[in-house]
């Protein structure tokens, strides 16, 4: 496989701000590139130099383990110089605005900035102020495009397709950027998407995005090929959304009993980090026959390598 090929790759956008902005050929291009990196990541020598001499800045305003390390590793494997800003010690803590931070970083001529921010639209604002490409690693509750792309890659890896699959996304949809990005992407790729969650955790008019909504989990899981669980985002909850975690688990936690409604070969996914015993039964999460949670993390690096490669050029 010619990973090092210099063939010009065309993407219709300068930045990766959300799945909403992408065309289906953009998505196919990213997934195609990502597939090529899967085997590289499993090989002995994992490093290539297609981004040699390029500078990648990771700007994470919110705590993150997997996304940040995944982006860092992806950049390094491609040979880029990767700098991860430590926000807690930076000028932002001293009251600098996002635009001023952007201007400062821009003056250092990076080739790509990866940003995660607690405010929806922060990456859009940043992209208007810098010359380089901006990759969104999660903005507020709006989008988390690379997560959706790695989820799609994982599904394709296991099921060989997405078209025609019935996919359930369950849990805290209201606060979830992962849910939104996945809804756009899975719809685009021809899946049927079921949204499951308590009414208090469903965003207004979500059905207008072309999904079926359920507050009864068993009904929503009926004959599903994929069950995507979401983390209960307690840190974003400002007032009473739920009575208790144990009641939530009773009604919306993924248990073997509820999973029986889905197809026999249904796969379980979770973007992590998991709240075991709240949204998912701990044994199910670790069931190697059903859970692809670890594979999601693995393919995450490949997807981010593909995005860095494509948007750096």
């Amino acid at each position, binding site marked *: 496989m010619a990973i090092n090929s210099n063939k010009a790759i065309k993407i219709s956008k300068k930045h990766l701000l959300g799945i909403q902005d992408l065309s289906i050929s953009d998505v196919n291009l990213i997934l195609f590139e990502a597939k090529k990196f899967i085997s590289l990541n499993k090989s002995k020598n994992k490093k290539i130099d297609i981004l040699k001499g390029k500078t990648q800045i990771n700007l994470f305003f919110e705590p993150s383990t997997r996304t940040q390390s995944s982006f860092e590793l992806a950049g390094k494997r491609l040979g880029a110089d990767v700098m991860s800003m430590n926000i807690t010690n930076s000028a932002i803590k001293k009251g600098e605005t996002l*635009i001023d931070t952007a201007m400062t970083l821009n003056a250092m001529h990076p080739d790509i900035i990866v940003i995660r921010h607690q405010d929806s*639209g922060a990456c859009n604002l940043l992209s208007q102020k810098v010359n380089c490409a901006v990759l969104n690693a999660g903005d*507020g509750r*709006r*989008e988390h495009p690379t997560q959706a792309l790695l989820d799609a890659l994982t599904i394709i890896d296991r099921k060989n397709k997405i078209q025609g699959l019935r996919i359930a996304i369950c849990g805290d949809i209201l606060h979830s*950027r992962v849910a939104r990005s996945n809804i756009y992407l899975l719809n685009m790729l021809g899946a049927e998407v079921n949204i499951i969650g308590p009414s208090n955790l469903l965003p*207004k008019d979500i059905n207008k995005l072309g999904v079926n909504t359920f507050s009864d989990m068993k009904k929503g899981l009926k004959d599903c090929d994929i069950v995507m669980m979401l983390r209960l985002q307690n840190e974003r909850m400002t007032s009473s959304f739920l009575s208790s975690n144990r009641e939530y688990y009773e009604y919306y936690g993924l248990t073997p009993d509820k999973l029986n409604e889905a197809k026999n070969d249904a796969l379980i996914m979770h973007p992590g980090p998991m709240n075991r015993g709240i949204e998912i039964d701990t044994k199910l999460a670790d069931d190697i026959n059903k859970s692809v949670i670890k594979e999601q993390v693995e393919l995450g690096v490949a997807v981010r390598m593909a995005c860095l490669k494509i948007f750096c050029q």
Partner: protein
Amino acid sequence: MKKKYFLNANIIDPHNSIEEIGGLIINEEGKIEAIGKKVNKNNIPSREKFIDLKEKYIFPGLVDMRVFVGEPGYEYKENFKTLSNAAIAGGVTSVVTMPNTSPVIDNVSIVDFLKRRGRDKAKINIFPAASLTKNLEGTNMTEFGLLKKKGIIGFTDGTKTIQNTRLMSRIMRSAYDLDCLVMQHAEDFELSKNGMVNDGIIATKLGLQGIPDLAEKIIIERDLTLLEDFNCRYHVSQISASKSVDIIDQKKDLVDFTTGVSINNLSLNENDVGDFRTFLKLSPPLRTEDDRVSLIKAINKDLIDVIVSDHKPEDEESKRLTFSQAATGASGIETLLSLSLELFHNGSVKLFKIVELLTSNPAKILKINKGNLSIGNNADFCIVDVYKPWIVKKEKIVSKSKNTCIDDKKLQGQVINTFVKGEEMFKI
């Protein structure tokens, strides 16, 4: 001052039911001496010069019931001088200023300061509103009676809403006793908490916390129910949703009250927020196109009495932030009339009606002798080329703050001159 003669003008003065081509004579004291179709060349001494307006329009000076000024406390956003310059550029000659300043307009001593500043610095008529509660905290009433004696014409907490129902009923009782006008910004703060845009598909797509239309309806419904028992002069400052129109329609026969709407909610909808345009972060938020259309229908059914600019100057720095960090509000006093004329040009509302909602209706609610062209009154008026096309440019905004929400918008109709007390204060 020399006498002034204007002829061949399209005069609209809803207060006096005038809608005709005629002339206007202003006497040496800056007061209206004669007006209407009977004023023609024959009434003018042959040696006097007159201005032929060639059927351009004369409207009474606009009365804008909802204007924020930065003085005192936020002079860097807007002071009385810059506000009045912006106002006359839009044909506005009287404004009600909101009490959301620092300090808050909540006691008699600060009213003296305001009146002095308004008189010395402003070219227009400033009518300060005082707050309903001390320091806008929503707990203790201000001294309605004493403030009224100092010249306060209305009471409101501006951007804030009285949440406590018992307090609201007491405010209404006091306002009834003292014949004071209560102006409520209708928003249930628990329902709208952290909200930034209309709660709906746009909020869901942008990942922003929504403000449900119910937050507005619930307060209006509560207040109008209270009003059945405590019948004071009550005005809903702004409505934005069709649900609010419905409740107003239901209550109109039961109680006396009036309603306002921001020109922004009549002209724009939630789709205009686009890609996180912070200049369109407004309160109440822009809602759906169906809501916007229902507001226009409400105007034509006499359910809405007043159009306001909701002029809220914010400096560039407080808008160059992420959507959730950015300040709320838009500068708009100088585009109020032009944007309102869009409703005339697109056939939504008759011209006479628009002028009524911008002049005589607010004056009547406020019980002030403004917004009319009655003989003997100060000649506050504007000359308008209703058909002149122009484009709004941020850099040409007269207000100290340039946060217009209609940058680059093509409009038809512009103010040519504005006169206050018979003197030309603005010329394009």
